[in-house]
């Protein structure tokens, strides 16, 4: 019954981890095997992704599934620019996108998000990296010396 709705092109409401109802269109569900499986098993409760992040993921999937269909001349350039803008978000959102993309097995989004985090770190020294990632220093001075030598 639920699958019939999806086939008819309508929207299926999933529940996010924070109890919001988020509508997923057939296009998005097809982009993502995890959603598809959940739908087929009649399970519409997403336990580990919040409504906000889910919406971002849907935004990503919708855009990309449409982009695949259109045949503009500069479509790949456009997509690149859109992707870059899409990832201009707060650090915490970026990391949550990584977890969501990982869980939902959306390779392209995971790649992109990881690359974005990587570029935050490139060119920074260890102190700066620790600050960006909220890590406390746990290496001793002696250990640091040893590492630098090797």
């Amino acid at each position, binding site marked *: 019954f639920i699958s019939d709705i999806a086939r008819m092109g309508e929207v299926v409401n999933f529940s996010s981890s924070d109890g919001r109802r988020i509508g997923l269109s057939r296009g998005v569900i097809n982009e993502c095997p995890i959603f598809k499986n959940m739908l087929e098993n009649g399970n519409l409760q997403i336990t580990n992704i919040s409504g906000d992040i889910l919406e971002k993921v849907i935004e990503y999937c919708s855009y990309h599934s449409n982009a695949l269909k259109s045949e503009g001349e500069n479509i790949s350039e456009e997509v690149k620019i859109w992707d870059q803008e899409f990832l201009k978000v707060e*650090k915490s959102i970026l990391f949550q996108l990584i977890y969501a993309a990982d869980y939902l097995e959306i390779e392209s989004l995971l790649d992109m998000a990881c690359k974005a985090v990587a570029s935050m*770190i490139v060119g920074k020294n260890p102190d700066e*990296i620790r600050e960006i*990632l909220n890590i*406390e220093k*746990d290496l001793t001075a002696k250990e640091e010396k040893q*590492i630098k030598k*090797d």
Partner: protein
Amino acid sequence: IMSIITSARSESLGPWLWKLEDFELIEFFEWFSEEQLEVLSLVSRYFYLLSQQEELWKTLCLRKTVVNKIANFKWKGTWRRTCLLHSSSKIPPFPYQRLSWKDIKAPRLTDKWKRCKTDLGQFDLKEQTIDKRSNLSLEDFIEQYEKQNKPVILCGMMENWKARKAWKKDSFLQKYGNVIFKTNGTTEDGKTFRMKTKDYWEYMASNCDDKPIYLFDNKFLERAPQMSSEYHILPHFSDDLFDMMEREDRPDWQWVIAGPARSGSPFHQDPHRTSAWNALLHGRKRWTLYPPDVIPPGVDEKLIDTEYYASPDVMKYYDQVYPRLSHYKKKPAPLEGILEEGEIIFVPSGWWHQVLNLTDTIAVTQNFCSPRNFRFVFQDLLSKKSVSLKKDFIRAIYPKKPYLFESFGPIEQCMKDPPASSSSSSSSSLSSSSSSVGSSSEEDEMDES
């Protein structure tokens, strides 16, 4: 105690990264260059462990040292040091001490390192169940083994081979040090690269990979023609019907293989159900065999049709599957044996086999189709989507030996293309054109060059 351990990890990774699993973190670290990895190694303990991962450094090293499909790295003990010291006159401190911390347990990061330090002495066999026969005549071999499709190790049949002296580790280096052989190593695009024996010998001597690279060359006679006079094909294996085909039509059939301890080959069956022989010139090889109708434990049945190696790596197999063999109640025990220098193993058609090199090894191997295994080979050719090999095979052999094909019905039927199947993708690499399919009795690779 688990919470103390996991919190050491999560503190070391920070609130953003600790939720990622180790293999995902390693993938994340793949985005970084050498210089960046060095910086990252100073961020925290867990970052240090991640940044030392050999697989990262192997990728980086090969990226800059493989030129025109030839790897020119000068091995310095680990991929990291080899990479960092490439084109550098720095003299590295040795031995290389890795830092570790009791409260940081990172099995995924340290398992491989531990496996490479495992002493392979424990892999010796108390009981060998593969027959070893000395001076086995051609007739006895055919009756007792080939017709029965039963494995055997032949002893004392290589005494007049020049290779017995010329293909020992030191003599091989002396004679063929400058020859560039193919290896089974690949760059990121999946293409294999070649190496000068001299350079490879350095790697072989002190590598610590848990899946070491090995020399594996199907064109070794082109690279070093004098090798052909240094070994002989025994009469037992000389009746090879593929010899009747044109050289460029027949599948690959002869290889020289050299590799260190821990290198080897996970369970597989040789292509086209050919039989094979493997003659050992240096070292010791541990063989594990299952008959054609028994899928070895650990082999993922779903992958058999699409993957050449549908089973875990050899070291992983001995780590995880082998200790629990008694749990696989429906499977018989495998045949096991240690191949020593001067011995030749016969691997009959369709037999699953796995090899672990217990020491540095040098071997020569060939695959063949004899009248005894003809029916298995031809059946396999008939069942494949790709037809060019089958047709060349028929054209070369049928005119001279039509009786071999009798049980397969009218030859015109055999020549026909198989009915179109519903699945459009031919994902099996075995259905690629005949001359580019590699096959061997021991290790394998699907080579495009």
